[in-house]
């Protein structure tokens, strides 16, 4: 840690936060993701653990993606309302990460803590084929972990899980405190 401060400013930190100039091919990401999944698969015993591992990796990515994206897309303003942060996720965040917006954003009828982000064909599952014995495996667990980290770091702690429903659905369940705070903000 000490050497970092004595060496002077690192050139990486001095760089401007512009958009990346070139896009990568889908194949590169798909192959890297497949290796990732295979690596996790070799080290775990059950499907649930594999999804947990993928979620953890997605978490790692989400934390780091958030700062750069928020600074670029919403400079100077932080999202304080639940609906605001969800729309940010559906639009700019998804577009920056996956190249297109998420298909739908819905709220559960009976529970105002639960929201659904629905995608017919998520990018991470493009080249993944699931064998029958692992039929509950959904590699969107990676996206779920990513979303959970983004929401958590923006001040909206939630649990996000991936399901097979109308394509792929990420179910977001906010903590009680978040909803209570949102209601009190609206009441004002």
């Amino acid at each position, binding site marked *: *840690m000490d*050497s*970092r401060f004595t060496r002077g400013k*690192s050139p*990486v*930190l001095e760089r401007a936060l512009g958009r*990346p*100039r*070139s*896009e*990568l*091919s889908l*194949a*590169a*990401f798909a*192959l*890297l*993701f497949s*290796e*990732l999944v*295979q*690596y996790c698969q070799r*080290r775990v015993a059950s499907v649930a653990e594999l999804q947990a591992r993928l979620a*953890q*990796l*997605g978490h*790692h*990515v989400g934390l*780091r*993606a958030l700062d*750069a994206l928020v600074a670029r897309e919403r400079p100077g303003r932080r999202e304080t309302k639940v609906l605001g942060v969800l729309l940010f996720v559906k639009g700019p965040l998804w577009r*920056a*990460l*996956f*190249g297109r917006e998420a298909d739908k954003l819905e709220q559960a009828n009976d529970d105002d803590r639960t929201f659904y982000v629905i995608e017919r064909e998520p990018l991470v599952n493009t080249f993944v084929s699931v064998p029958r014995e692992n039929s509950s495996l959904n590699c969107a667990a990676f996206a779920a972990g990513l979303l959970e980290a983004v929401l958590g770091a923006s001040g909206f702690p939630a649990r996000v899980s991936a399901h097979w429903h109308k394509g792929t659905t990420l179910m977001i369940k906010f903590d009680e405190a978040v909803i209570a705070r949102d209601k009190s903000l609206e009441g004002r």
Partner: protein
Amino acid sequence: SRELFVLTYGALVAQLCKDYEKDEDVNTCLDRMGYDIGVRLIDDFLARSAVKKCRSYSETADMIAQVAFKTYLGVTPSVSCSSATGNEFSLILDKNPLVDFVEELPAERASLCYCNLLCGVIRGALEMVHLAAEVTFLQDRLKGDAVTEIGITFLRKPEDRKHKRN
């Protein structure tokens, strides 16, 4: 998108570092994963670019640098030939997108080759077109060198290739 790719790669390396104690194990693992990716990437590459058969090693190296790197990573390294027999080439990358978000290696991981995946990818891809090669890092910007340099050493002599064609 590029950020997602770079961050995913970072998450992968971080996970590997957590799982393995020694840097050499992490490097080996990255190399092997890169190899698996490379054998599949070559199919995609040949399908997309429809290039003609390369007649010499230097053409192959040029092809890797100018076409493949551009398609998959968006950068074009420069190629230099470093041996008289024409077997050894090095690709010099002055902008490596994989380390976009990496400042430096932590002190306890001083010998980690962060981009070892790239070496494995090149090795796997070349092997699928029947060109055995050894790919290593000669210089690495993360370790304090000026640029990142990947060295490719083709293992079989040019005379062997002529025999194969007959």
